[in-house]
């Protein structure tokens, strides 16, 4: 090829690359000449042709099996599924013919179930020489169609990581990633789906199906510009129902979301009760209607949205049933009864046969635009109205006598009507045992509260009138069982049973208030149980290590206060955990002094003077008052004066900012990541380098800032939170990452030494130096100069 043409085409190419390119073009010319040459050729050797024939037979058989597998899965998949559907029905007939004409068709036996047929085809594919990756891919697809979305996501993730580890081709990786993204979309996590595609952008831009899913994820998570860039005007083979319904509501997107709506072959998913988490929503509310005035039957909401909903409910914005005509509405549509603020809303009618309200409305509000389709929402509503299947009987844990004191304290503090009787049940050696009771003295009590644990596992208050074997108090005609669950949510630590003589159901608002108090109680219960257990086994108080030294001081200070001490002042910067500490101490003091009331916690931050005084007046009758404040003395003194007593000596407990108790940071980050892992079923690793980087930051926003950062990191890097991700996230938040604590104080050095110790208790100087961003020699020198004198030991414990 002429030098001129190449330099004209590629003016910026370097001479060595030009040389390589010329060689390639020479090879291509030879290839073309080879094709043209007819004479002097040697015929294909027979053995090679025979091998090719065998390979072709195997390939065609495998492709036929793939078509049949597709046909089976398509027949079962829901129209709401985001999974890319493959072969059409006609192709599967052709595939069946292909198999029938082969020497060993290996068709499934008659009478097999769909699942068994699918397994048969996968085995047949393996027999036809398919690789393990092929089997992984199809197993993941089968799990996606037959299992819940969370299991599907786990399956795709495993298959993708395995294929990537084995350096599989880009086409297979793209198909596996498509499945993973589809599973995330089916879990109503468009933002997470979008983040997954962004991390694999090369793959996402190469494969048309994956690119389309990327575009949909971007659109549904509110990134319109990215969605426009990714989606082209070509027609998709099929469009899932949620996308089709979005297209109906947004005609301006119809050109980019073109394609026939997926046929409803399989049923919309039923059997899983909808929850805030499963729908990726911010508000899930059931509003009862029928002949009665509208009222809230059940509500799950995130913290920010809950307040808005309560405001709207108080303002009477609950529309009656007749007004709820639309099944969905998006932002900017005026007049719709969006209760949680400016959100995307979907509504479906629910029949509630056991609730006397007759009919109700399930309303879902999301911050993103991925709503369940109408059919899906109606299926979920049907699930709500259907009788609950008996849940798996949870594991019971042995009761500890010491915990009964806490239970008594809790019951004494409950604010329930007089005719309601509360019973605290804890698993003991003979099953559930009544540990404490409140309310009117029972005329008679039946023992053997079987069924309560199973009902409590559902997590939903349930009437038990008409179920005599579950009634504790024979005069009761209605009641609910509220579980106190262990951390994982699978173990019932105790059950609180509320029963009433009245014939109608218990007042739901009171029950919800009790349930809230119970959930607040959980952490204190765990902590008390741990301490009791330690005291029983070891014979002394639980020793808290250096990392929680400030907590020990705070607890000792609170316990040293006289029994009549009324006002406690918890000061510290915002987000440092003052309220958590106050709750824990209040509970601890109530237990120690055998008091029923834990007192009132009053947060003074940011309250306007008038509001502050009103709050103080409301709390004036409280036996103990926990004031949460920053160090603004004026506000505090005014508040104390208003309490009718001189600003004497409230016991002051200081919570230091997170930057002064850095030793907690690694544990806090690990805890937050583990919590997210449990929630999202992800296995995220966080290398020591990232923990060291997080350890060095200033954290002006304290714990709240750490939590927000970890949540961002988990969205951006769900598999491994590397140091580069942490740096990028810090920079995105406007905090340049601190790479070295050059002027580390003795406390900071001590914190680094404490968190980096070997398991045997010896110091790990190199690791501590990494945490501080110092050279090991520098750290040694610092320790020699002053660290040892301040109690920081370089060796030994």
């Amino acid at each position, binding site marked *: 090829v002429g030098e001129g043409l190449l330099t004209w085409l590629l003016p910026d190419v370097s001479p060595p690359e030009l040389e*390589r390119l010329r060689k*390639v*073009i020479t090879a291509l010319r030879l*290839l073309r000449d080879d094709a043209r040459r007819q004479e002097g050729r040697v015929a294909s050797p027979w053995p090679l*042709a*025979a091998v090719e024939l065998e390979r072709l037979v195997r390939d065609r058989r495998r492709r036929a099996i793939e078509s049949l597998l597709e046909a089976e899965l398509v027949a079962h998949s829901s129209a709401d599924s985001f999974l890319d559907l493959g072969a059409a029905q006609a192709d599967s007939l052709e595939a069946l013919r292909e198999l029938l004409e082969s020497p060993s068709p290996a068709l499934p036996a008659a009478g097999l179930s769909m699942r068994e047929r699918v397994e048969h085809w996968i085995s047949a594919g393996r027999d036809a020489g398919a690789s393990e990756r092929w089997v992984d891919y199809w197993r993941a697809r089968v799990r996606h169609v037959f299992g819940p979305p969370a299991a599907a996501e786990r399956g795709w993730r495993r298959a993708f990581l395995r294929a990537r580890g084995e350096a599989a081709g880009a086409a297979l990786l793209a198909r596996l990633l498509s499945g993973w993204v589809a599973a995330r979309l089916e879990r109503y996590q468009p933002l997470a789906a979008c983040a997954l595609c962004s991390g694999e952008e090369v793959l996402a831009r190469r494969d048309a199906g994956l690119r389309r899913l990327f575009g949909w994820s971007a659109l549904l998570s509110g990134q319109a510009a990215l969605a426009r860039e990714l989606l082209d005007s070509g027609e998709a083979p099929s469009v899932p129902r949620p996308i089709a319904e979005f297209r109906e509501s947004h005609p301006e997107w119809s050109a980019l979301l073109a394609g026939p709506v997926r046929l409803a072959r399989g049923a919309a998913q039923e059997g899983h009760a909808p929850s805030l988490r499963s729908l990726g929503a911010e508000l899930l509310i059931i509003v009862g209607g029928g002949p009665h005035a509208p009222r809230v039957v059940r509500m799950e909401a995130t913290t920010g949205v809950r307040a808005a909903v309560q405001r709207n409910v108080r303002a009477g914005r609950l529309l009656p049933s007749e007004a709820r005509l639309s099944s969905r509405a998006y932002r900017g549509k005026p007049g719709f009864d969006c209760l949680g603020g400016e959100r995307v809303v979907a509504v479906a009618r629910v029949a509630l046969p056991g609730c006397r309200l007759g009919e109700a409305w399930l309303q879902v509000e999301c911050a993103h635009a991925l709503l369940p389709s109408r059919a899906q929402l109606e299926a979920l509503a049907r699930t709500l109205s259907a009788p609950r299947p008996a849940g798996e009987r949870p594991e019971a844990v042995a009761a500890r006598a010491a915990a009964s004191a806490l239970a008594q304290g809790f019951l004494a503090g409950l604010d329930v009507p007089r005719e309601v009787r509360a019973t605290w049940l804890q698993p003991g050696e003979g099953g559930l045992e009544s540990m404490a009771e409140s309310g009117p003295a029972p005329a008679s009590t039946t023992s053997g509260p079987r069924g309560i644990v199973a009902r409590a596992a559902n997590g939903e208050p349930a009437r038990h009138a008409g179920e005599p074997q579950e009634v504790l108090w024979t005069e009761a005609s209605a009641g609910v069982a509220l579980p106190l669950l262990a951390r994982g949510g699978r173990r019932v630590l105790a059950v609180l049973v509320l029963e009433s003589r009245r014939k109608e159901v218990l007042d739901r608002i009171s029950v919800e208030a009790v349930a809230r108090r119970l959930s607040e109680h959980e952490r204190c219960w765990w902590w008390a149980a741990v301490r009791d257990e330690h005291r029983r086994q070891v014979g002394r108080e639980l020793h808290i290590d250096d990392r929680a030294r400030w907590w020990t001081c705070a607890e000792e200070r609170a316990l040293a206060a006289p029994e009549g001490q009324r006002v406690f002042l918890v000061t510290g910067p915002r987000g440092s955990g003052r309220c958590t500490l106050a709750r824990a101490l209040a509970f601890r003091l109530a237990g120690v002094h055998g008091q029923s009331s834990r007192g009132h916690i009053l947060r003074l931050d940011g309250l306007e003077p008038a509001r502050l005084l009103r709050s103080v007046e409301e709390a004036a009758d409280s036996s103990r008052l926990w004031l949460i404040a920053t160090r603004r003395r004026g506000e505090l003194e005014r508040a104390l004066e208003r309490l009718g007593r001189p600003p004497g000596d409230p016991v002051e407990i200081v919570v230091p900012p997170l930057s002064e108790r850095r030793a907690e940071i690694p544990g806090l980050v690990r805890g937050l990541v583990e919590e997210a892992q449990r929630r999202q079923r992800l296995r995220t690793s966080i290398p020591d380098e990232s923990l060291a980087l997080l350890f060095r930051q200033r954290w002006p926003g304290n714990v709240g800032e750490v939590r927000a950062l970890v949540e961002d990191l988990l969205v951006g890097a769900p598999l491994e939170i590397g140091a580069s991700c942490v740096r990028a996230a810090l920079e995105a938040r406007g905090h340049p990452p601190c790479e070295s604590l050059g002027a580390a104080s003795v406390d900071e050095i001590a914190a680094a030494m404490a968190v980096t110790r070997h398991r045997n208790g010896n110091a790990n100087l190199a690791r501590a130096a990494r945490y501080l961003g110092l050279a090991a020699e520098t750290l040694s020198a610092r320790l020699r100069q002053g660290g040892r004198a301040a109690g920081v030991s370089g060796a030994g414990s």
Partner: protein
Amino acid sequence: MSRDTRPTLAPGTAALLHGSPSAVLARIVPNDPLGLRARIAAECEGRALLFDVERALLHVQALVALLAGRWRGEPALEEWVTERVKEGLEDVLQSEASVVLGAGAAARLCAPLELDAARLGGACSNFNRLPEGARRAFFALVLEGASPDGWARRSGRPLGELLRVLRRALEPFRAATSVRTGPAAAQVAERRA
């Protein structure tokens, strides 16, 4: 620029297609009585495709042998064979780099020029997925050495667009020739040594 050299079938060729796939294969491989190689070469030239004709021939021969038993005289044999050739070539175009550039051609072409056969096969595979206009322009200007002005005049497209199309067609080969480290590069270096 395409040269249609498709052969016509001699009378009685249909008899070759009777029997089991192995038997048919044994008849159509020696001397290529169906003229499959010439048909493949013509198709390759006509559609401006780059692949190893010998490797594609193996696949098409196997396909014809496998499907011969399904031919019932309709359509005419000539048409049926042409359809199988096109089907076989589609398979090759969708398959991996080692099929696009077979081992024989790789040894013949790449070794003397010190090129990485796998990367060149992958580049050919990517080239074959480009729009036909880009492929034709590449064939005419780069492989045949035609004048850009003349080609632009004949095709009725502006020279600037031609330039853009040619750059796009060259892109797979540029990617294949970019310097990289790894096992393939080590193999090339080893061969060079």
